[in-house]
């Protein structure tokens, strides 16, 4: 496989040499490791890397992947980190407009306005910065002589990867992990890992989220060794019978490597409920009926069971241990009302961007834990991962905290159909363009495969503000066909009504007034209604929430919403006049055009202090308790 720089230009190339998406389960060599949540199969490559910044592809160091490359001129950078926050390139905040607005005239590849003239749009652009990363690493002893893959948990926005001079592959989709098999080229010592990150590619058309536009390796980089027999993928499908309060467990397991014994145990929070032994195979399907009544998982009582799988040699020596937390719950729609475990679901939700005022979208475990605690203490019971998949650990936290998740696919093309507030979809991406379909469907697949085992995920969301067309319709069909245990959400179909019957299980709107909601619900509604965004908490806001909460009493099919949003996106930088650290926003960095303070819409300030409005949220979200 020979890398081509023109891959940046076409949506047809988005995933070269990557391993297939799979469940996010962790695996360990021993139970002791598992108890400490420290797997000897993992080696972090976070830390100091060598780095070179180039303003465009033409000026990048093209041969830096070669093992004899002299990196004398390279700087150092900390990974993970946005390149802008490391001191290169410009901070730029912009909302719906594409970031090249006023700088470049661009129309998406394969659209009516650009059928075949897109080569070079990004690869030959005068401004499309490149970060060239180098890391030399030795393999930890525990990882040696094993199959080893590398996982990039988040790289924005397009990336080429080489190991020891060999090209491994190419990835887009900034917010889902990209994995490559290192094994054929790996050495025990002095490996030469080269990663070339481009700020923009054709993916920029479908990653037009309302946030600071950063690039670089902004989430963890991890080596993952695999024992000779390994569980590649796990799908635990717990079924909950609401009337009988009984549960069934369906397992779909995919192993690689030699055939081995697999011990299965299943526990509630006190007792072993059953154990079994299987034989590993590329595909294993297993079904269990639970004898005792099960405790259902829900917000007030996030009861989790534990499935443990141990891969053993014939002699019974454990070589891999996996623990998967399992929640029994049932989400369904009856008579246009969403029911969770047989009871009407009320969404007291919030949208959440990942944010830290010093490190941007590179956030810490402590940030994440704070966010979940803040939700719990303020009666917030649901979160929409606006508008991309979050760090893997956030889904675990929500399982354990009982926070309902709307797991959103990394898709937003706001600037392709809405201009200055008006709907104008003449070149909507992906719209109904077949050429964009594989890239977009792949994002849906990654989102599903990664998070399919999380009881907290009640909704798959197709993305945000991307209008609608046949591609969104196919995404909807993908999720429906793949997963009968969850609902599909999409809001944009509200404006493209011809897709109403084939996209989204719920009627979702954003910022609809209480009267508009009543108008929908009073006129033969076909679907339950939620607000995927409401109560826009910009600055001093969040007045009038009562009018929305009152609707919960008036309409069974009105089932709440997600406040926009959780945390202000402001950057702490030093004010050159006062020397004090201060929160800055769009336009404060000569970045134009900008949407200025429009990134300050959170229930908490960027510094993670609650805004005064939070007590109102706590009150109204607590009224149904």
């Amino acid at each position: 496989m020979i890398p081509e720089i023109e891959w940046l230009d076409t949506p047809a190339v988005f995933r070269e040499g990557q391993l297939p998406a799979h469940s996010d389960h962790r695996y360990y060599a021993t139970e002791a490791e598992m108890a400490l949540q420290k797997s000897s199969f993992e080696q972090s490559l976070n830390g100091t890397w060598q780095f070179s910044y180039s303003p465009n592809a033409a000026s990048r160091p093209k041969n830096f992947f070669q093992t004899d490359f002299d990196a004398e001129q390279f700087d150092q950078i900390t990974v993970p980190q946005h390149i802008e926050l490391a001191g290169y390139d410009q901070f730029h905040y912009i909302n719906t407009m594409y970031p090249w607005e006023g700088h470049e005239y661009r129309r998406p590849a394969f659209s009516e306005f650009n059928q075949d003239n897109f080569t070079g749009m990004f690869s030959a652009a005068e401004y499309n910065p490149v970060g060239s990363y180098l890391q030399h690493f030795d393999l930890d002893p525990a990882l040696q002589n094993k199959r080893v893959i590398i996982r990039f948990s988040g790289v924005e926005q397009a990336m080429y990867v080489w190991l020891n001079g060999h090209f491994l592959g190419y990835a887009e989709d900034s917010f889902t992990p990209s994995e490559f098999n290192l094994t054929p080229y790996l050495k025990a010592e002095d490996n030469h890992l080269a990663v070339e990150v481009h700020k923009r590619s054709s993916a920029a058309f479908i990653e037009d989220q309302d946030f600071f536009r950063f690039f670089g390796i902004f989430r963890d980089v991890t080596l993952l060794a695999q024992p000779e027999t390994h569980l590649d993928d796990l799908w635990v499908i717990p079924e909950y019978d609401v009337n009988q309060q009984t549960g069934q467990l369906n397992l779909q397991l995919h192993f690689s490597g030699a055939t081995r014994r697999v011990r299965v145990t299943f526990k509630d929070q006190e007792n072993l409920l059953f154990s079994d032994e299987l034989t590993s195979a590329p595909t294993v399907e297993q079904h269990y009926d639970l004898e005792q009544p099960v405790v259902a998982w829900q917000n007030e009582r996030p009861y989790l069971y534990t499935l443990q799988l141990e891969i053993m040699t014939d002699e019974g020596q454990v070589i891999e241990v996996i623990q998967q937390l399992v929640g029994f719950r049932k989400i369904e729609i009856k008579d246009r009302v969403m029911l969770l475990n047989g009871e009407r679901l009320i969404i007291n939700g919030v949208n959440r961007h990942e944010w830290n005022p010093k490190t941007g979208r590179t956030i810490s475990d402590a940030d994440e834990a704070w966010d979940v605690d803040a939700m719990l203490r303020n009666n917030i019971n649901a979160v929409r991962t606006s508008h991309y998949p979050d760090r893997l650990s956030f889904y675990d936290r929500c399982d354990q905290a009982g926070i309902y998740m709307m797991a959103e696919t990394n898709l937003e093309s706001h600037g392709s159909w809405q201009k200055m507030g008006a709907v104008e979809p003449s070149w909507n991406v992906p719209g109904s363009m077949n050429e964009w379909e594989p890239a977009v469907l792949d994002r849906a697949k990654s989102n599903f495969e990664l998070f399919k085992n999380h009881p907290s995920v009640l909704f798959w969301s197709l993305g945000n503000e991307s209008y609608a067309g046949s591609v969104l319709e196919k995404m909807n069909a993908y999720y429906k066909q793949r997963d009968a245990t969850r609902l599909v959400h999409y809001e944009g179909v509200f404006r493209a009504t011809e897709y109403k019957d084939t996209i989204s299980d719920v009627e979702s709107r954003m910022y609809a007034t209480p009267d508009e909601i009543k108008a929908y619900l009073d006129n033969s509604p076909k679907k339950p209604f939620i607000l995927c965004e409401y109560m826009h908490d910009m600055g001093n806001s969040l007045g009038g929430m009562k009018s929305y909460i009152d609707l919960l009493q008036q309409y069974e099919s009105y089932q709440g919403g997600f406040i926009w949003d959780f945390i202000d996106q402001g950057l702490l930088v030093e004010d050159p006049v006062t020397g004090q650290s201060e929160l800055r926003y769009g336009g404060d960095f000569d970045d134009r055009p900008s949407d200025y303070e429009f990134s300050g819409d959170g229930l908490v300030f960027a510094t993670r202090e609650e805004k005064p409005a939070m007590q109102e949220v706590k009150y109204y979200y607590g009224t149904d308790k």
Partner: protein
Amino acid sequence: MAQTNKQLAVIYGDVTLGLKGDDFHYIFSYQTGGPESFRIQGKEWLYRSPKPTFWRATTDNDRGNKFPVKSAMWLGADQFSHNQSVSVAINGQPIDLPIAPENNRYTDHEIAEKVEISYTYLTTTVPETQVTVTYTVEPTGKMNVAVAYKGQKGLPSLPVFGLRFIMPTTATRFSYQGLSGETYPDRMAGGIPGQYDVQGLPVTPYLVPQDCGIHMQTDWVTIYRQAVLDNRIRQVPETGLKFSAVNQPIAFSCLPYTAEELENATHHSELPAEHRTVLSILGAVRGVGGIDSWGSDVESDYQIDAEKDIEYQFDILF
């Protein structure tokens, strides 16, 4: 508080009306258009004469729904509305305004049981309207302040209405009985009733400085200050001045800045150094809204109709 059986000493000056009692000395000016001095327990509480206030620093939602475009004239009114007339009543009886030479009839030992001074302000709006503020002072030093806005057809919705006191130095703290946190008419259900102490003069750190710090449904608020500007005084104890609701709860904000100072800053670092205490005792507050930040107005119940009268009163005591 002094004993209640005493009388006020009244000083019929040429430019001001002085009122004295135990531990207090008030000066009401005919020239500055309002009280010029509240000196209590040796400490001055006024920097400039209190004036009606009509403006709040534009919130993000206000900007989005073009409220300041529609109601901009209240910004001018907040800055430039002026005193039109003053009247005085002694023991409930109106008297001719005791300026020279009318005041030559008085002596150096005048007393009264109750003195009312009423200031009428003319707004700089088109059309214009009036606000009357009446101070009724008792021998104890307790003062009732009655504020009356005259509704006027054709005036745009008000951002806020109240009386703004600017004190010479920053407060050390304030305490109040009302609702927890920062509350607005359409965002106060979550406020928990109680007595609260606030240290300093916090400005809520919204990304762009904007109106903040309103406390609805307040029974009383006491402002505590220590520092004074009087060059003779080296050491002063912290003392408080209490503003107490009468009949209906009041709303207030206590900030180091005027609405205009907040209005002009794009970041907190651009705000001036904190020198004063700006206390607004409010009779009407516009809600903040929340449906969106690009057009939806505050719900109608929480807008302030400028075509209707607004009246409220409160006591000042120490």
